[in-house]
């Protein structure tokens, strides 16, 4: 009985030490770093699903976890490859008298079924400052970019997941000269 008691105390002590070590390591590695939530309400590139465009067409899968937030999914996102996407865009896009230059960037989410939504639009001039481009041009690009046929299902292991991606159109005199990334 006494031996059992001693073994029990040793096991309990070992458990407490392990938990303490884990907590200490976690604190040192991550927990001790403060967060300035006044300046950074969320990670860079986070999309506010409440205010994003086309946020009610599809739903995010599972608990809504988002993958590929580091730099989007340039090698995985395009259904049929980037070349196919480029061709589709260039065939569909009509200049329609637009003359502006700059960038139109769409930052968005794609759900586990490959359906895009939750779009944030950035209209940028050639000096990299926010501007307002021709609304018809931006609307046309949004319509092309939000076509679900453009986007792939991205899997982690065997599981399809939600992910982040962005597309940047470089426009010169109303014409698309580059599609990035």
């Amino acid at each position, binding site marked *: 009985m006494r031996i059992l008691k001693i073994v029990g105390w040793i096991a309990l002590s070992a458990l407490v030490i392990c938990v303490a070590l884990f907590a200490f390591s976690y604190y040192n*590695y*991550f927990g001790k*770093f*403060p*967060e*300035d*939530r*006044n*300046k*950074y*309400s*969320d*990670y*860079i*590139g986070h999309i506010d699903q409440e205010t994003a465009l086309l946020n009610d067409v599809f739903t995010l899968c599972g608990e809504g976890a988002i993958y590929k*937030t*580091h*730099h*989007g999914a*340039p*090698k995985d996102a395009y259904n049929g*490859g*980037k*070349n*196919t996407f480029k061709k589709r865009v260039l065939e569909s896009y009509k200049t329609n008298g637009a003359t502006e230059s700059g*960038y139109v*960037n769409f*930052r968005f989410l794609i759900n586990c079924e490959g359906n895009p939504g939750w779009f944030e639009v*950035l209209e*940028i001039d050639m*000096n*990299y*400052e*926010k501007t307002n481009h021709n609304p018809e041009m931006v609307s046309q690009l949004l319509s092309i970019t939000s076509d679900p046929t453009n986007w792939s299902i991205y899997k982690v292991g065997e599981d399809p997941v939600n992910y*982040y991606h*962005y*597309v*940047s159109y*470089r426009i010169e005199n109303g014409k698309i*000269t*580059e599609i*990035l*990334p």
Partner: protein
Amino acid sequence: MEKLLKYCLKSALFIVLFSCNNSEENFDHLSQAERQKLSTEVFDGGSHLPQGSVKSMTRIERAIAIDPGNCDAVRELSVAYLKRGMPDKWKPQMDKTVECNPEIWTGYRGYNYLWFYRDYKRAIADFNATDSITPDFTEAPQGHSVDFWRGIAYLGLKEYAQSISYFDKHIAKETAESGEDWVEQEAFLYKGIAHYENKQPEKALESLNKVIHYSKNLTADGKYYKALILAEQQNCTKALLLVNEAIADFNNGYFNSRDYVETIRQIYMEDLNKLKTQVDTCLAATI
């Protein structure tokens, strides 16, 4: 019980004080050397945090608050915006970085203009600026000389003579210093592409043969462009062999690409298949 309550209150007070906003910190009592040391410790100490996370951004801001001359930290604040497609936030922070240390970061900004924005003119302007900022040596942002980057930027502008002349300059320098086998294969590839697009197929073949040689015969891009030229010269038998090898190389991952953005003149399997069809047609016509 009373003691326990007191202990809890003290702990809560400690936590509240500890979590106070860092912007209220004052470092005036520290010498410049101490501030530099502390700033580096804060910056490096959080380098494992996920890039662009709130914790990471907060720690970078703190490092800069301690020492505004910590240009690595100033630069790091821009990177998440660059990679996530937010140029309006990237640009002012990148400009601050260049102001902080033009010697180190002007060429790097040019590299960003080149790859992430395909803003060839601004890229070239920054690469050119490094010539006067560091006249005694050739800058090499991201591990490649500005001459190499200028060659690519001028190819983007389709100014082939300029592109080729910068590749020549880069290749000559690398060859003199370390030997031709130390030159990046991409220098020969892009020089070959510039010659090809400039309607100089024989010169293009010279460069492409070097790509094939130095890649140990594992290059979808080198073989694709060579096959393209041979097909145009109606040398369809050789072109077919090459395009088949290019497809195999591509499937094995031996093609030119970049991590965050499509590379300039990126080739795709569709390009290879299209060329194969053309070559097959050419062969059928000659039989």
